[in-house]
């Protein structure tokens, strides 16, 4: 049996063998800190967003989330079997990818877009690089970027579900694309009763879930704080320059997937920097790129592109943002 050594290890009573572990980092102080626990934490953090999405979009949300999650899990099983590896479904990472992917899709996207996005996310985003923990780019965002470029028309939410349950096939653009021309009230934007992708509508839910993740330290607080702080400062400057504009700094923070992206997408521990200084650099750069794309480019929203772009820079950040060891910098020997 292949799994035998692992099972032996698990069956050994904990604490009965007292010996000093000497190994390379990471030095885990807590044996319960597993991938599975972190992934379940992320799922718990996503719960408020899921609840809001289902309350607002009803069974359309369930359908879209179901398609993405099921196809992500299926693709993970398929590709793992293809590579002759034991199926890693138990670590829940494919489920998290599927849920995040589903939340980043508009509910009106046809079913095959969800399936294609899941296939690209798991196949090209993850398995090609060797599976969990080795991917360079956030898998869910690779999948979403792929379908965003391939099916741009279907990726804009083209209809809106009224609070009384009737389906309004009015082409109401998402707040981020409509806001440049007309005013959007802030309170619905904060609560989430507006149009958009499933997960991006409610700022409140993202704040609750993201706060949980940061408290549990499954996500590092530096990244969302860096992103949101940069957007706040730049948006504030823009707001001060154009005091008459109906698109205030709060619209920047509450509108679009800013909160969702900052707390759930950018903080993926695999594709974000390791050191604290690196995380600040990463977060602030994502905020800068988001604002650059939002204010100047043709796309209404830039969180996905910003995260993907910075994922590509993470190896360099890891290389340059090495923390100073305890006791001060290592003195450079004079030549």
């Amino acid at each position, binding site marked *: 049996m292949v799994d035998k050594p692992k099972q032996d290890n698990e069956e050994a009573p904990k604490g009965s063998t007292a010996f000093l572990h000497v190994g390379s980092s990471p030095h885990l102080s807590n044996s319960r800190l597993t991938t599975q626990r972190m992934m379940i934490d992320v799922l718990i953090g996503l719960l408020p967003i899921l609840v809001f999405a289902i309350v607002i979009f009803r069974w359309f949300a369930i359908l879209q989330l179901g398609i993405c999650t099921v196809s992500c899990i299926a693709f993970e099983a398929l590709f793992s079997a293809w590579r002759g590896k034991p199926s890693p479904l138990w670590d829940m990472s494919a489920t998290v990818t599927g849920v995040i992917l589903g939340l980043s899709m508009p509910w009106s996207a046809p079913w095959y877009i969800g399936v294609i996005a899941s296939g690209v996310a798991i196949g090209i985003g993850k398995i090609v*690089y060797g599976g969990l923990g080795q991917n360079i780019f956030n898998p869910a965002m690779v999948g979403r970027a792929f379908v965003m470029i391939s099916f741009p028309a279907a990726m804009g939410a083209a209809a809106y579900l009224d609070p009384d349950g009737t389906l309004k096939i009015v082409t109401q653009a998402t707040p981020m694309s409509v806001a440049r021309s007309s005013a959007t009230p802030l309170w619905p934007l904060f609560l989430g009763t507006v149009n958009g992708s499933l997960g991006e509508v409610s700022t409140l839910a993202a704040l609750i879930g993201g706060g949980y993740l940061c408290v549990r330290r499954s996500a590092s607080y530096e990244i969302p704080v860096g992103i949101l702080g940069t957007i706040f400062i730049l948006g504030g400057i823009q707001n001060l320059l154009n005091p008459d504009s109906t698109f205030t700094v709060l619209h920047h923070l509450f509108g679009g997937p800013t909160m969702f992206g900052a707390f759930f997408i950018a903080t993926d521990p695999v594709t974000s920097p390791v050191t604290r200084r690196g995380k600040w650099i990463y977060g602030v750069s994502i905020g800068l790129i988001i604002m650059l*794309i939002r204010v*100047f*480019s043709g796309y209404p929203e830039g969180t996905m592109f910003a995260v993907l*772009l910075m*994922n590509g820079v993470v*190896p360099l950040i*890891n*290389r340059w943002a090495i923390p100073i060891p305890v006791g001060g910098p290592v003195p450079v020997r004079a030549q």
Partner: protein
Amino acid sequence: METIGSLILIAIGAALINNFVLHYFVGICPFIGVSRRVDMAFGMGCAVTFVISIAAFLSWTFTYFILRAGAPVTSWIWHVLRPDSELVPDLSILNYIVYIFVIASSVQLVEMYVRKFFPALYKSFGVFLPLITTNCAILFACLEIMKHVSGASDPSQVWGLDKALVLAIFGGLGFTLAIVMMAGIREELDQCDVPKALRGPAITLITAGILALAFLGFSGVDRGLAALFQ
């Protein structure tokens, strides 16, 4: 203001929005070949930036003064030879040959310089240093400049030397950015369990594709910035 604005637009366009590697997909061969280590990639980026600037300077000079239709030097010679001729001399047919000549000689210059002063870098570049000669990114920059010098229908739209040089230098910087990013990723990929069939150039091309997706986010930024400068 407007001149500086248009220069900034050309710079950002060449470095980020229409990145030579990740938008036009030119210069892929050093991008794949020399992106194994970050320091080597940076050296290659600098070499390409240098060659591209020299080539842009020379090709702009040749195109503007000699090659394009009604170029001053050619017209003057033609006027001396045939004072009564009504024809406007046009040597655009020679563009490609002149550019190839210019690029090859500037690569030779770089090769001699690197060989003399950075022998280690020269060794690690190997065949890719002379291969800059066939690097399509440089020819692409020359052709882009040609398009705006001899291809411009309106005489006020003809690019000056400043615009040509900004395009070349920032295009080279964009190339450096892309190749250094890719080298960082590839150093990380050394530790990854990439399927055997995809190791090396294949995974690099896939990664470049994903990076190109990410760079697509910048599309349209130039139009937004242009509105800012007016």
